[in-house]
Structure formats: structure tokens, C-alpha cells
């Protein structure tokens, strides 16, 4: 026997790495991703020609007015959508998370709580399983063309996503304070407010703001199917092959994402105090 002590975990890690590569390689083939095509001379010229139409960005007053109105639309869709999504997500996350489970504290099985938790998890799965674009297509038929369809679609998908991630954030934070409170007879919501939220608040805030940023982008995509805002404007500009306008819209996106970043940083600072 060798006297050298080997890391017992090394073999498992190596196997996992090899397995991962074995799965990735065929996937790469199926996805038909060939980077060389990008750099073929003809393609580069086409790309260059397309991008050249983007310059200079459109700055005429009429278009800027449209752009401003569409930006407000997009911000409204994203913000109202996220607000409604939180209304769905908060109760679902509280039902789905294991952190506030008293049964996990004392290892006494409470079948009803387990059943409720499973149902909440299943519901979040259904809500976020269908892409928001599909929901938007459905809601456009109900609410007609315009922002309402986008809001409804966002509320549903993002409600599911937020619920899942909220529940997981609550589970991955330090549970010692929460468990101590539950062990001292506190109710679940009391333990949430006094034990769990003080530990998890900044992560919850930062994820919510990130989702708001995603909602801005998603509302743009949904605009292409008629849900209003910057997306609809972009759709029109692209169809008219107006690169300058498209460029101005893209710059607006960039500014919105930077705004989201700044907002997130500021809110986190507020929470941390």
C-alpha cells in the first residue's frame, strides 16, 4: 500500500468532468454552432453593411417623441408586471420554502404542510414553464393589442420565477436565527420577519431588481407580438429597414439596463445600511 494519502473525492470529480464533456460535445453538434461561418469574408461584409445602416442614430424630434413614449410604455409594462408578479410570488414562495418548516425543526412529519409545499412548487413550475411570449400571444387575444397583454404575461411567468428563486434564496441563507425563533414558539411569519428577512433581504432585493431588468427586455420582445412599448417600435423600424432608429432604440435599452444596475446597487446599500 502506498503511504501517500490521495484525495478520495478526486476520482468522482474527474468522472463528472468527463461525463460533462461527453454530454456537451453532441449538444454542440446538434446546435449547429460553427464559429468559422461568422468570419467568412462574404458574411462579414453583409454584417458590416447591416450595421453601417445603424449609423448615425436617428435623432429627429418626431422620432424621439415616439421613442420617449415607447420607453415610458416599456417601463410601465415592466414595473407593473413585476409588481403583480411579486403579489403572486411572495405567498407562493412562503408556502414553498422549507426554511419556515416547523417539521424540519423537530423532524416530526406534518403531511398537510408537505402537501401544501408540493402544490406550491408545482404551481410555480406551471407558471414559469410556459414562456412569457406564449402567454403574451394568448393575452393579446383577450386584451387586444397593447401593454395590458404584456403586463399579464409578465405577471404570470415572472410570478413563477420569483416564487421559485425567493424560496431558494430563503433556503440558502443562514437559518440559525429562524430556527431559534421557531424553537422558541414563534409563528412562521414572525420567524420570517425577525429571523429570515434580516439575513436574506439584500439578496432578495437584488434578485428582484435583476428580474425587473429582465422584464424590461422581455417586454421589448413581447412588443414584437403587439404588446406595445419599445418592442413594437423596434419591430416597425426593423421592418422599414431604418437602422438609425433601431440604433437609437438599442441605445435606450443600454441606458435602461444601466439604470437598473444603479437602482439595484442603491437599494442594496439601503438594505445593508
Amino acid at each position: 500500500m502506498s503511504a501517500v494519502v490521495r484525495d478520495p473525492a478526486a476520482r468522482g470529480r474527474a468522472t463528472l468532468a468527463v461525463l460533462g464533456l461527453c454530454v456537451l460535445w453532441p449538444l454542440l453538434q446538434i446546435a449547429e454552432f460553427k464559429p468559422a461561418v461568422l468570419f467568412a469574408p462574404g458574411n462579414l461584409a453583409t454584417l458590416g453593411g447591416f450595421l453601417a445602416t445603424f449609423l448615425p442614430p436617428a435623432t429627429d424630434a418626431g422620432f424621439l417623441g415616439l421613442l420617449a413614449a415607447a420607453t415610458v410604455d416599456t417601463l410601465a409594462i415592466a414595473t407593473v408586471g413585476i409588481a403583480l408578479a411579486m403579489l403572486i410570488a411572495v405567498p407562493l414562495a412562503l408556502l414553498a420554502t422549507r426554511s419556515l418548516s416547523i417539521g424540519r425543526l423537530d423532524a416530526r412529519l406534518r403531511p398537510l404542510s408537505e402537501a401544501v409545499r408540493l402544490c406550491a412548487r408545482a404551481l410555480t413550475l406551471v407558471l414559469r414553464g410556459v414562456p412569457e411570449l406564449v402567454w403574451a400571444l394568448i393575452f393579446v387575444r383577450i386584451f387586444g393589442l397593447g401593454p395590458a397583454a404584456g403586463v399579464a404575461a409578465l405577471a404570470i411567468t415572472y410570478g413563477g420565477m420569483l416564487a421559485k428563486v425567493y424560496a431558494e434564496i430563503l433556503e440558502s441563507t443562514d437559518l440559525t436565527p429562524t430556527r431559534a425563533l421557531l424553537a422558541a414558539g414563534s409563528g412562521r411569519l414572525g420567524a420570517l420577519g425577525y429571523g429570515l428577512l434580516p439575513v436574506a433581504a439584500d439578496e432578495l432585493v437584488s434578485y428582484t431588481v435583476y428580474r425587473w431588468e429582465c422584464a424590461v427586455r422581455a417586454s421589448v420582445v413581447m412588443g414584437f407580438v403587439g404588446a406595445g412599448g419599445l418592442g413594437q417600435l423596434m419591430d416597425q423600424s426593423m421592418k422599414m429597414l431604418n437602422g438609425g432608429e433601431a440604433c437609437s432604440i438599442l441605445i435606450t435599452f443600454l441606458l435602461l439596463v444601466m439604470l437598473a444596475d444603479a437602482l439595484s446597487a442603491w437599494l442594496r446599500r439601503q438594505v445593508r445600511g
Partner: protein
Amino acid sequence: MISLTAVSMAHAGGRLALDGIDLSVSAGERVALIGPSGAGKTTLLRLIGASLQPTTGLLRIDGVDPWGLSARDLQRLRAGIGKMHQTPPIPPRQRVVTAVLAGRLGQWPLWRAMASLVYPLDIAGARAVLEPLGLAERLFDRCDQLSGGQLQRVALARLFYQQPQLELADEPVSALDPALARAVAVALNDDAKRRGVTLIASLHAVELALSEFSRVIGLRNGRVAFDLPAGQVGQHHVEALYAGAGAGQVAEAAKAEPRARLTRCA
């Protein structure tokens, strides 16, 4: 008040943490649990605190088997049991006043708990328990601005604010310097004496156990080695309790420790 009859506790994997414990503690007693690492002190405290269900045997608190209670009654029972830990379970970003008021969450209705998050509803009450511990000025400071010793005193203030009928402390002074350790042990005992409630604390500081508590129980390998009034515990009892806690014992304790940790969080 508390009685254990042939109580055993097996951890996952079958190792016995407690092995046939018979014990009764009457109201107003102040009991120190001593014994080497891995003797089962923490497990015993968690059983008595109704946080952990015994594998076999019967536990009664005030004549009631907690594990026969409904969820609501069990919660009410727990609200009357105050617990203290070696590391204070207080969120770092919480303010001292909130951390103290959290002691009564088990007694407050939900609306009061939630309203008190918006504006602390019993500032005077929190101040009254912090004052004798020398922390009245820190009322609105955040807990991450406190030293370890100050934080443990905040945990103590929370326990006093809860006004429990039974106080359980799991190595409450192990992380403190000797002077502070004595001060915290004295404060715990004084409060229990004044209100006539039961106190059970596990300690590594044997001299504190002998000088401050009324009764000392020595645990070793999950069994009661001795159970005597503090005045009758002699040097030979203590030496026998910790005998052989050398290399072999330490290695075994180290092996057992992660498992004990896991169950503590489970």
C-alpha cells in the same frame, strides 16, 4: 416539572447520543450539566426544550408529553421555554431592540409582531432588560457593531424579555472571557432565582457550575455519571468524569462532532 424516563436518543447511523436517561428536575432548580465533548449535553437540552423527539422513553414537561400535543399546543409550550446558545442566533443586520423584542414572538399575536417590525412597540421593555446588562445605550445599534460578548448579552436580554418558565442554556459562556462568563452565569442564576423558574445550563467551566448552580449533573457517553447537589460534588467526581479525555477521546469526539452539528441544524 421535567421528568425523563428511560430516554434514549439515537442519531442517524445508530450511534446513541443518550442512553437510558432517568432524570427529574423540579420547578425552581438550577441545574448545571457538565461532561466531556460528545457526552450528550446538547442533545439532552434539545430534548428537554421539545426541539427533538426522543427515540425511545418518555419525556414530560409539566406533566405533559410534548410529542402528544397538537402542533398549536406544542408551539405554545415552546413559547414558555427560553433557549440560549453558544453562538447567539441573531441576524447581524438586526438592531438590538428588534433582537430583544423577538423574545416574545411566541406570545405576541401576529399583528403585533408585524407592527413591531415597522416601529418597535415595547422600547421601554427592551431597555429594561438591557439596562442591568450594561447595554441600554446600544438599543438602536445594529448587532454587527457589537462584540461577541455584547452579542451574547443581547441574547441573554432576549431570554429575560421572553420571561420563560424554563430556561435552557447550551454552553452560554464558552465563548466568553472568564470575567464575562461569570457575569453571564450569575445573571442567568439571579433571574431564575428571582422569578422562581427552572434553569438548566451546560457548561465547560466546572468551577462556575459548582459555585453558581444548585445541582450538578455529570454526563458521560450519553449516561448520567453523577447527579448531586452542587455542594456535594468532589474533585474525584470531576476527575472521573473527564478521565481519559485525552487523545483517544478527542479523536472520537471530533468524529462525532459533524454529525452532532448536522442534527443541530436539522
